[in-house]
């Protein structure tokens, strides 16, 4: 942690002549209004991206975003201002704008404690520098060649590589001083295949809070290429998807987006404090079948959704959301925890210094159960087996959620039938997990490509689950 803090200080404070004592002065200035809490969040993000298309390296881009966001909180009120200058006059100016939500009060003196010592879940080195440019470009070319070598029907391959290095430091009026240095890499492959008049796509990818070597190791990136082609070829054979309510078996891993949409968002503290979530006031009640235990775990080393500390300096943790079907807890940031008389859970996250933090998921998944995946499929007479999904969406108030299958098969008489075209599945969050009648013993987490949007802010997240049987879910195909 000391190394992390030293990197953050050298990146964020020293170039503008700032020291932690200056952050105390800025917090004093904020707290001279009648506030309950205030914080200063300094951040610098370096991001590099490369795109291969048509067999050539078509685009490359580099960006640096840096600045500080200042937040003032009084009761349920929040004042916020940010600056892209990490210098004292700009910080004072932003502090004065943010604190106008409250009347002037007494002089206060904030003393920061030594930096939070959290378990480091990833290396601090910049992933942008973890491979040289020639090796990055070579990786893209090898992925392209691998995809094209799979099948002559591959017409187009697009490969994108993104590496980001995010350095943050947060100081708060409760004395919190914390820093984090977060690597994030991701590689995506999208292919178009053609056979006669028919054209389909397939995509795959993966990533981690890690160096770019993660993508090279174990031939992961080449595996994404093979997987994208496999999916596209399956879709070439797909028939119209069924329409109506039926049993649905969800495969392990990425289909955990079900949990993210159906229950995850509804268990974020802000919606429950405001009483706008369909899960509000339901702690202690059964909201799922007894087979279901769902956690949000920010502590998994190197995972895309993991954080050593959250964006308010709270160490991340594994929070039990649903235990054996009973609703246990919400995900909290500091403000909502304070207003609800609960403890922060390390879920205070923000897209950047220019955005306000709020309760957000990290890695959300369901623990393994007792069933063999094969027996789950065999238990269904007529239904759908869905193994890959695009994105999802939820209305947390009505509880209605959707997620869109990109690879699915009919189940007929307990056996897998033909693949079906992509279809949206729709359900009701507070009901869907009560209909889970079988949980597989094959828990898997996703490959590391998830992004979650809330109130216009995007953050990286993870999902996971074992194979699940949902007794009834509405499948939005065209074949009525």
């Amino acid at each position: 942690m000391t190394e992390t803090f030293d990197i953050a200080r050298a990146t964020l404070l020293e170039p503008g002549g700032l020291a932690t004592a200056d952050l105390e002065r800025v917090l004093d200035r904020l707290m001279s209004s009648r506030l309950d809490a205030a914080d200063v969040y300094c951040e610098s993000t370096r991001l590099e991206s490369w795109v291969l298309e048509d067999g050539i390296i078509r685009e490359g881009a580099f960006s640096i975003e840096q600045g500080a966001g200042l937040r003032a909180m009084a009761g349920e009120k929040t004042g916020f201002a940010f600056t892209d200058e990490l210098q004292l006059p700009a910080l004072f100016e932003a502090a004065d704008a943010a604190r106008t939500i409250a009347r002037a009060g007494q002089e206060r003196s904030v003393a920061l404690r030594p930096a939070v010592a959290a378990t480091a879940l990833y290396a601090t080195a910049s992933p942008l520098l973890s491979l040289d440019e020639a090796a990055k470009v070579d990786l893209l070319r090898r992925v392209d060649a691998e995809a094209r070598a799979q099948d002559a029907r591959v017409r187009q391959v697009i490969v994108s590589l993104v590496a980001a290095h995010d350095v943050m430091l947060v100081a708060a009026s409760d004395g919190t001083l914390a820093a984090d240095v977060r690597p994030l890499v991701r590689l995506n492959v999208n292919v178009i295949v053609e056979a006669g008049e028919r054209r389909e796509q397939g995509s795959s990818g993966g990533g981690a809070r890690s160096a770019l070597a993660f993508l090279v190791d174990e031939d992961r990136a080449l595996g994404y290429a093979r997987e994208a082609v496999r999916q596209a070829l399956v879709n070439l054979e797909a028939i119209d998807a069924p329409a109506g309510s039926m049993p649905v078996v969800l495969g392990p891993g990425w289909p955990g987006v079900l949990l993210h949409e159906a229950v995850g968002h509804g268990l974020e503290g802000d919606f429950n404090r405001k009483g706008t979530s369909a899960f509000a006031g339901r702690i202690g009640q059964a909201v799922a079948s007894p087979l279901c235990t769902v956690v949000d775990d920010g502590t998994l080393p190197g995972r895309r959704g993991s954080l050593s500390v959250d964006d308010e300096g709270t160490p991340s943790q594994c929070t039990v959301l649903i235990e054996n079907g009973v609703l246990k807890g919400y995900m909290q940031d500091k403000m909502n925890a304070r207003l609800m008389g609960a403890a922060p859970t390390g879920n205070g996250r923000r897209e950047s210094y220019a955005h306000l933090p709020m309760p957000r998921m990290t890695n959300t998944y369901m623990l393994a159960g007792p069933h063999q995946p094969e027996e789950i499929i065999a238990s269904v007479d007529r239904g759908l087996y869905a193994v890959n999904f695009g994105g999802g969406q939820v209305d947390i108030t009505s509880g209605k959620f959707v997620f869109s299958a990109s690879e699915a098969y009919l189940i007929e008489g307990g056996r897998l039938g033909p693949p079906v075209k992509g279809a949206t599945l729709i359900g009701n969050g507070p009901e869907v997990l009560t209909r889970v009648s079988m949980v597989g013993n094959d828990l898997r987490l996703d490959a590391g490509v998830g992004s979650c949007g809330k109130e216009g802010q995007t953050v990286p997240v993870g999902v996971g689950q074992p194979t699940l049987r949902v007794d009834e879910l509405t499948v939005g195909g065209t074949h009525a």
Partner: protein
Amino acid sequence: MPDAAERLARLEQVVDDLLAEARRQGADAAEAGVSSDQGLSVTVRLGEVETVEHTRDNGLGITVYFGRRKGSASTSDLSPGAVRDTVRAACNIARYTSEDPCTGLADADLMARVLPDLDLHHPWTLSAGEAVDVARACEDAARGRDPRITNSEGATLDTHQGVFVYGNSHGFLAGYPTSRHSLSCAVIGEDEAGMQRDYWYATARAAQDLDSPEAVGRRAAERTVARLGARRLGTRKAPVLFRAEVAASLMRSLVGAVRGPALYRRASFLLDAQGQSLFPAFVRIHEDPLKPRGLSSSPFDDEGVATRPRDLVRDGVLQGYVLDSYAARRLGTATTGNAGGVRNLTVDSGPLDFPGLLREMGTGLVVTELMGQGVNLVTGDYSRGAAGFWVENGELAYPVEEITVAGNLRDMFRGLAAVGCDADAPGSFRTGSWLVESMTIAGE
């Protein structure tokens, strides 16, 4: 705050510096964009201030070309040091990208020469306190509209103004100031069946063009209350009326499938569709990038190419694609001045208002909300979550939810039976409601 002319001059200088630095570092050609924006966003919830956010966003981006290789870089820092470092980063990237015969600036003779004033800059100088008053009036109107409104996500007033400048090594250098103001409100209603939420909003270049706070609030409340007691539907095929506020998403699907990258990647169900009848003959879809006060108006596109009005669809026939110069070269045709996207798209209104469309439909589904991303532009396959109303004998019968609507976009476009004259949703895509002959509805 310096006035717009002064800020414009300052940003033009930054673009000039970027282009000069690119030349100094050996680039054969370059293009750069710089923006500076400031704003205020205030949310009132249950009558009390919830957030007051002051925003100040700066950004600069440069693309350099070495022969037919390119590299790009951007930053939020507009200082001279950042200009030098950003150009260096872009030049370094360009050492590793490939020769691409189609890459490069748009052709010099396409650069906009006249820059009409499109009346896009109407800053709203209101204090945080005044903004709170507007948002509170909006939320009060929503909460007071119906006793079944029991909770609120609040009302937000958002006002932004900024300056944007673009230049390239053809000698093109131009920019303009813009403003944008939005007012939105989301409220929650409750009855014995549970809670429902809905929202409404207004957005405009000038504050006086916004709907009144009371009108926005009332509409949000009416939409929420109308959803109370929603039921599911049995699975069936039926006509579907996409209400104006969701019909715009069908225009986006059309645009997505005729954009350059979708075409040259062969990732579109509308490959080679130029000249084809995609819609019935009554359909005309018009793009007007020069519309005064238009939400996405601009006298030049993101490459400096002069923009001009055109029909994207006329007599039901697709007239052209949505291309920048790179896509145009890939496809062996000319840019349509759409670098950065489509600007202000309008579908011609038909004769029927909303009640008239309901009568025309007879029995079927009105969709007022779509959920999820179930649109496959490679195949046109369409499957999305929906909420709205079941219609019997030309009248709204009851609200419905937790259903999907599915079909194929080609069939939906071809089966467009009517476009209404009820275009009342804000945004740069304007259309009345779309009546689609038949889709699959999945439910119970």
